[in-house]
């Protein structure tokens, strides 16, 4: 099944493929710990924003799990939140200052640090790999690729008749960098900073611990959602169920 079996120097195996893989992995680890060291610490925001978020969370929890409460308890809680002096109503009606997340210094710092720590090693190592390991074939992907990939995969090699499956060391580095994510999750547990794709998603401002951009809107949405939530007793037949088993 091996088409045009090109024989590569076995030294490549030891001195190129394995080192690139090991370096990619180790740098991921370094990046993870570096991010932990450099991070600003758990940013909780001001007391106001904490109160806001807790209130909203409480309302959401009530909506979700309310049907496990007795009818009276549910109504009491609902009225407490969205009644005349309710926490949600007050929050809905106050015009808060719109906090522009772009001008928030601590958030920007975190964002920048995250971006730098993630992109920089990739660029640096990519550059070093293409400098040090260019001009020869490194490996072969076990599946056929179209010719368009040749330009991408065979950066330093100028053979036009070469099968597109043979890749340069640079592409091996990228394969390694992308495939390592699963391994990172095993080794580092959840919420690891070496996960680049998730890091790219996290570049959006705001977040769980951050400040809400428009609190009034959030209050309003929660107020309306809670208002239309009807009480539905989930424990209605629970005696029957118990007696049946």
């Amino acid at each position: 099944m091996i088409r045009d079996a090109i024989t590569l120097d076995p030294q490549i195996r030891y001195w190129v493929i394995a080192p690139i893989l090991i370096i990619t992995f180790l740098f991921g680890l370094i990046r993870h710990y570096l991010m932990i060291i450099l991070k600003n610490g758990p940013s909780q925001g001001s007391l106001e924003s904490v109160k806001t978020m807790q209130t909203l969370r409480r309302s959401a929890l009530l909506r979700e799990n309310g049907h496990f409460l007795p009818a009276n308890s549910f109504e009491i809680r609902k009225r407490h939140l969205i009644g005349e002096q309710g926490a949600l109503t007050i929050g809905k009606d106050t015009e808060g200052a719109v906090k522009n997340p772009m001008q928030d210094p601590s958030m920007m710092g975190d964002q920048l640090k995250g971006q730098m720590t993630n992109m920089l090693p990739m660029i640096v190592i990519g550059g070093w790999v293409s400098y040090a390991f260019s001009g020869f074939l490194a490996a072969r992907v076990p599946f056929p690729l179209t010719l368009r990939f040749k330009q991408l995969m065979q950066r330093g090699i100028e053979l036009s008749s070469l099968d597109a499956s043979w890749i340069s060391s640079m592409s091996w580095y990228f394969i390694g960098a992308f495939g390592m994510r699963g391994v990172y999750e095993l080794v580092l547990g959840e919420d690891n900073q070496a996960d680049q794709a998730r890091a790219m998603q996290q570049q959006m401002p705001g977040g769980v611990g951050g400040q809400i951009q428009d609190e009034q809107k959030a209050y309003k949405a929660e107020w309306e959602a809670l208002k239309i939530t009807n009480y539905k007793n989930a424990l209605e037949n629970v005696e029957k169920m118990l007696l049946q088993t």
Partner: protein
Amino acid sequence: MESSESKKSARFISQPALRKNLLINQHSMTMTTGLAGATAGIIGLTGLSGFAFFFVAGFVLIALLQMKAGFNWEKFFPSYKVLMGGWVTAFKTYILFWTFLYGMIHIY
């Protein structure tokens, strides 16, 4: 009958337990795809048979997870949809191990 009606009522899902179960799922997925990729590389699968092997490994993984859940998936997860995430990462891990072992063994 009453029992089938009451089954439609809400279920109380414990969040930490659910998260732990999902984590177990994810870990198993990573390990099996890594191992499957290594196997494919060692055997020397190329092209289509390699991709087919990935799907086979996926099915085996789902079957094994079902066995671990005692064929009672509903007891541990709110729905079957939790199986849908994370396959792309698993695929990338598969490719990595596949290419690596294939290169190691078959380029000499």
